[in-house]
């Protein structure tokens, strides 16, 4: 074919992302597991080719040399990103596996994989970052507005109600349970009872996330239930951590509890949050702590996680990282599911949510209709399953690579303006822009 007859097209399994900030872009070649980063001038050439221009015409339109453009097109073909055709074709984008499965009659049933429980609103600490505070410094993952917690009653979750919810979840095949407790001390009895119940109900994975050291009874129960205890760290030593959580001795208590748990052959983990006083990537004290305690897992808050962490000594512990390199199957999965798919969150008021940041939108309570009733009604479905097509308001949004149709974002949509985008802090905007190619 002559260049004049040529139409260039990306393959359906190549994903293009544009960086609006500087005009650059990235091509994700999913089957080849490769990323091609594109200079702004290359993106301009691609735009011209997509308008149906021949390489020579595209060169003229973008001010590039014709030979350069031909070489660029040849490079894209050779790398498996796209191909030249004699006529404009339709390229079917790689999509979710089975659209018919979303029809009610064929619905396979939502699979509850993890139940999160926030058994108490009480805490003895006053961490500046705490997501339960309205003026917290740590932003939710999307940078969206923090929901008011005024409607949340200041009472603990009833033990019998919690056990009922756990039993229903277990009957539905849920195998993972996570308790989020700032300080276990005030509700030690409830935590002990719940850990014991979790063990009896056969949960395969039980985790307790806490910000303080554990009292003896909880330590014993955790060991007995084979629970993973994950401690939140705001700093890599007592000076930085205690300053961030505004209570002396917390760091030492955590490390003491961690060592006791390790003695009992229990598993420990660390959930490291950005407090502004430690750079996890460079902290020698932190690396020393990891080498010493060998935690089963380390989770870094996804907004602050950086690619450079991959090359550090702790990279093997990173369980979760945004903007992962492309993989065809995980990409397909991400097309179908939201980040909260398979998870329900129970607040201390007994209400059930699909995300901790959606406390204005409970989808039921443990009492009524219960976990079972919630799934029977399909109330979780709009939050767990991405819509087949993007809402009109979201089409072409520059924040899509980050938002990924987050249910929080959907909940905050206001007319044509997405509250998420408007309230995105500059720091996060910059980070997302820098990762515009993220899939």
């Amino acid at each position: 074919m002559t260049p004049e007859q040529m139409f260039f097209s990306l393959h359906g399994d190549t994903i293009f992302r544009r960086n609006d900030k500087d005009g650059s872009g990235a091509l994700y070649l999913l089957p080849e597991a490769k990323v091609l980063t594109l200079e702004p001038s290359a993106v301009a050439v691609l735009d011209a080719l997509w308008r149906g221009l021949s390489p020579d015409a595209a060169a003229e339109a973008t001010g590039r040399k014709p030979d350069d453009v031909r070489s660029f097109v040849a490079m894209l073909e050779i790398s498996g990103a796209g191909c030249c055709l004699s006529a404009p074709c339709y390229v079917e984008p790689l999509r979710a596996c089975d659209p018919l499965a979303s029809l009610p009659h064929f619905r396979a049933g939502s699979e509850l994989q993890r139940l999160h429980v926030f058994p108490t609103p009480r805490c003895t600490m006053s961490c500046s970052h705490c997501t339960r505070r309205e003026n917290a410094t740590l932003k939710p993952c999307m940078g969206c507005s923090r929901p008011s917690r005024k409607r949340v009653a200041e009472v603990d979750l009833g033990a019998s109600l919690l056990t009922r919810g756990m039993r229903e979840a277990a009957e539905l095949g849920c195998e993972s349970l996570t308790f989020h407790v700032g300080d276990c001390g005030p509700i030690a009895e409830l935590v002990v009872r719940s850990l014991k119940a979790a063990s009896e109900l056969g949960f395969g994975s039980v985790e307790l996330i806490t910000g303080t050291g554990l009292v003896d009874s909880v330590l014993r129960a955790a060991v007995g239930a084979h629970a993973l205890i994950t401690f939140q760290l705001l700093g890599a030593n007592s000076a930085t951590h205690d300053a961030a959580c505004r209570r002396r001795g917390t760091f030492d208590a955590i490390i003491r509890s961690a060592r006791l748990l390790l003695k009992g052959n229990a598993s420990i983990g660390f959930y490291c949050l950005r407090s502004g006083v430690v750079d996890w990537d460079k902290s020698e004290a932190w690396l020393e702590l990891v080498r010493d305690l060998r935690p089963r897992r380390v989770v870094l808050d996804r907004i602050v996680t950086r690619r450079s962490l991959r090359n550090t000594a702790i990279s093997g512990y990173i369980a979760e990282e945004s903007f992962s390199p492309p993989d065809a199957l995980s990409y397909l999965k991400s097309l179908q599911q939201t980040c909260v798919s398979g998870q329900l969150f129970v607040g201390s008021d007994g209400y059930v949510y699909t995300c901790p940041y959606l406390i204005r939108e409970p989808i039921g309570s443990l009492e009524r209709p219960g976990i079972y009733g919630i799934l029977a009604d399909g109330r979780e479905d709009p939050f767990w399953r991405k819509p087949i097509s993007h809402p009109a308001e979201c089409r072409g949004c520059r924040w899509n690579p980050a938002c990924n149709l987050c249910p929080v974002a959907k909940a905050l949509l206001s007319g044509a303006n997405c509250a998420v985008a408007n309230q995105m802090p500059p720091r996060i905007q910059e980070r997302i822009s820098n990762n515009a190619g993220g899939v």
Partner: protein
Amino acid sequence: MQAIRGLHFSTRSGCRYYYDDCSGLCYPCPTGLRTAIERSCEGEDAGAEEPQAQWGRFVQARRRSLGAFSQDTHSFLPPRLDEKQLRHKLLTTGFRQLLLVVTDACNLNCKYCVFSDHYPYRHDRPKKIMDIDLALAATDVYLNQATRIRRRNPAHPIAVTFYGGEPLLNYPVIEAVIKHVLSRGITDTIFSISTNGTLLNENIADFLVEHNVSIAVSVDGPEITHDTNRVFKDGTGSFELTLRNIDKLLSRHPDYPYLIFLVTYDNGTNLQEVRDFFRSHDRFQKRLMVFSQVSPHFTNYYSRFAPEQSLAFSQAANAIKSDMFREGARYGHNDAMLDFLFGLPLYLCQSRRILGNSGRPGIPSTSTCLPGEKLCVVPTGAIEVCEKAPGLRIGTVETGLDFGLIKETIDSYNHTITSNCATCPITRLCGTCFATFWSGSAFRFPSPKFCHARTSSATSVLEDLYSLLEVNPSYFSDSRTIDERLFPRLKALTY
């Protein structure tokens, strides 16, 4: 030479594509890719220096990461399910629909009925009418299992369908079953009924509407078309009575959403007249229409049509179909024939499963359901696979499902039918099932060239689909939203 499962096709614009059945993906197919596929079939890899090397790598990368362009026909064959596995599978995901054939009797004498002399199927059962005790017992057998499955999967559907003959001839059983299901506290059951509409009086209609029963009424088109085939025993047409009853229902319940129309056509149907009829009457607006061809399998029915008649039918069909390609054409725009007769095959093709296995566990190909997902109970108390495969028994109401018999049925089906699919290029598009191959006494291919014709048909659908999408990429994009708004829960039962 080892074939790769897939096929080449071209669109009206001349663009060439390759449909890869191993993955379900479609690729634009320039010469280089075509050559690489041919070489791959011959077991050759392109040399590193050759111009086609990039396409060789392209094929290999997709074979490695997506399972595309695969030659391994052995892995295509599923592990054989033993009876224990089958029992477990059905007791965890089966029992999706109970279909009660409440009577074999009918007050009409439709010329294309599958129980007419044109077909090998017979209603020669010793008992024609289902009695209430049997209906309630069958309902309990189904509900006991379905509600048990629901404890593990709350989304598991519970659906009860009334079928015939003409089911309204045994209306007391229908009323009793619905009340019985509700008395067990199951409030979200999908009830549905297929009827010719002639007995749909006000009392019956009110009861069905009150209980949100999906009412599927057969209307073949305008009076002359409808009455050509749908006649009473004395030969008089049923159009007037059917339409009168529909109008009465709609006058009392104008917004009732669960009213469906079943349209049957053959080579003698004037499609344009039928299209105009459904477009011009308010009663059909925004209603789900299900178009079905008079079954062409195991029958001499079509011998009545002269070749010229069949040709004229095809030409008329093509003329209507071409409207899909006109500028601005879109789905859900008050043209049921375009949407459902011509659009639905394309839409289903576009909605094909991508990646993963096609078929059901133990059944590698075709689109059949697993026997036991649907329970079709006939008046004698036998449980059959489906209303469209009369006589294919898989148990009884008294003893429940016979898993040994189901296994034998699957083995027979695999041995006779799916053992021929290992090199089939369209397993994800085939759309056939037990009913397609059930001859009344055994599974067999309806004709020697059946699969060839099926592949040609699928190729044609791909050509139409991609021709349409090249012109109008968003033709189907909003169809799901439209369907779910217009036909909540109904469409699921029609697939």
